[in-house]
């Protein structure tokens, strides 16, 4: 973990209620896709956690959905603004166990961290497949970005305005993959784990007090006892979870 001041390079709307910020600053604390940062929003007491979408030396991006006071304020942040962030938080996805054909499943605001993961898997010469779900076509993002990487993408929307109608599981087959990675609403994660025939990892969300292990605010009960989503997670192995 490292406390940094990041400079906003870009803050652009990429879909309905959905924005992407590119920061410049020290990214040395990030080590794996699926890690997150915790961002101070002036005027609000708690920091806001966001999964890192992509990073390279000196640059990092997040994609966020406007859902409340903090993300609302963030959507007004201008290029050139400095923000205080805790970086390199949590334990990210493990790309070692993916096997040759991992499936990446994302729902809504759970899609962003899959971008970096996908690129790393490709760099490791694996053949990832992506399945994403959104509320409607207007909220969808990254489907083309994934396709441009040469990755097969299936899409579902709840209202059927894009891709299959229904949940993301309705748009993909889980039996063809060697491993899965999932990030999205808790109901989706449960369904994915239940439907899966392979091993896999899921990224959990929990309301956080600190984001770096101090407050026990984000505990989830696992097969190996209570674990902190912010420190032992947010990514957990399917087999660890109790639900």
């Amino acid at each position, binding site marked *: 973990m490292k406390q940094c001041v990041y400079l906003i390079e870009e803050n652009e709307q990429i879909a309905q209620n959905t924005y992407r910020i590119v920061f410049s600053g020290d990214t040395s604390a990030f080590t794996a896709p699926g890690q997150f940062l915790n961002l101070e929003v002036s005027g609000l*007491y708690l920091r806001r956690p966001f999964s890192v979408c992509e990073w390279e030396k000196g640059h990092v991006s997040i994609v966020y959905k406007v859902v409340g006071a903090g993300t609302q304020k963030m959507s007004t942040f201008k290029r050139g603004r400095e923000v205080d962030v805790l970086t390199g938080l949590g334990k990210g996805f493990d790309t070692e166990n993916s096997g040759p054909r991992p499936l990446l499943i994302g729902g809504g605001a759970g899609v962003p961290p899959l971008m970096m993961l996908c690129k790393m898997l490709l760099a490791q010469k694996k053949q990832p497949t992506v399945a994403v779900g959104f509320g409607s076509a207007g909220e969808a993002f990254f489907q083309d970005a994934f396709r441009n990487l040469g990755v097969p993408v299936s899409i579902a929307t709840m209202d059927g305005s894009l891709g299959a109608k229904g949940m993301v599981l309705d748009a993909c087959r889980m039996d063809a993959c060697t491993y899965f990675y999932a990030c999205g609403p808790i109901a989706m994660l449960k369904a994915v784990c239940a439907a899966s025939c392979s091993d896999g990892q899921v990224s959990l969300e929990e309301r956080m007090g*600190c984001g770096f292990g101090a407050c026990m605010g984000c505990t989830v009960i696992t097969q190996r006892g209570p674990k902190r989503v912010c420190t032992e997670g947010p990514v957990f192995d399917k087999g660890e979870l109790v639900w």
Partner: protein
Amino acid sequence: MVNMAVILCGIAMPNPVIAASGTFGFGEDFARLYDINCLGSFSMKGTTLSAREGNPTPRIAECASGMLNAVGLQNPGIDKVISEELPKIGEFYHRPVMANVSGFSVDEYAEICRRLDGQAQVGWIELNISCPNVHGGGLAFGTSPHSAAQVTRAARRATVKPLIVKLSPNVTDIVEVARACEAEGADGLSLINTLLGMRLDLKTRRPVLRNITGGLSGPAVFPVALRMIYQVYQGVRVPLVGIGGISSAKDVLEMMLAGATAVQVGSANLVNPYACRDIIKALPDAMADYGIKNLNDLIGGAH
């Protein structure tokens, strides 16, 4: 040169800033960030006799200038704290720590104190009496002078270590509770624990916290904490540890002026992991701004 050293219940501290229980774990996460030997001390995560998984999540809710928590005393239990955490602490922290303990019966409090009594690194025992009394109808021990006194008496018999009772602010008359604890042999009092509060989620129309209510902390509670330190200072003779909303060196000075011998910094650690260190670093300049040479001269100076 200014003097920041204070003595709390017979134990010397390089400065009055103690990290508050529940916001500093067992110190390890912070020791990785900075050398925590700069602290006056730290109070370990609230410990109970048996291990506890705590409350279901969500356990955290945001408020204006503060937060609610309903962690529910998640901890590994006293034996693991003694066998695993304290030895680890010994590797990165070289001063006395404060052991924050909770029980659901008078006997539990006494038993934990007994087990801690021989632990060399434990300087003070801090009794968190904001826990529900399972034998007393579920009301928190700290909400009546009678049950607060019972806990203090039992703990007093179980340990020779300096005993600090941590008071709940959710009472009509905190001085009455403070006096009852002092009468039963408390060596010091720390206050305040969190104010009972809640938030609702308009989307789900349900409480944000699964536990429904939670404890309010952060700058929002500072004026209430300060008032209580000021009142209790007038009612007892034992030293006080001021807690609640402290997030700057000026807050430390204000709390000491009201009557605190030392202070604890809680939620501030969560939003700024370096909060305690930053506050300690800023103290000498803040003291100079107000012509304070020796912090001890400040204690209770507003009375």
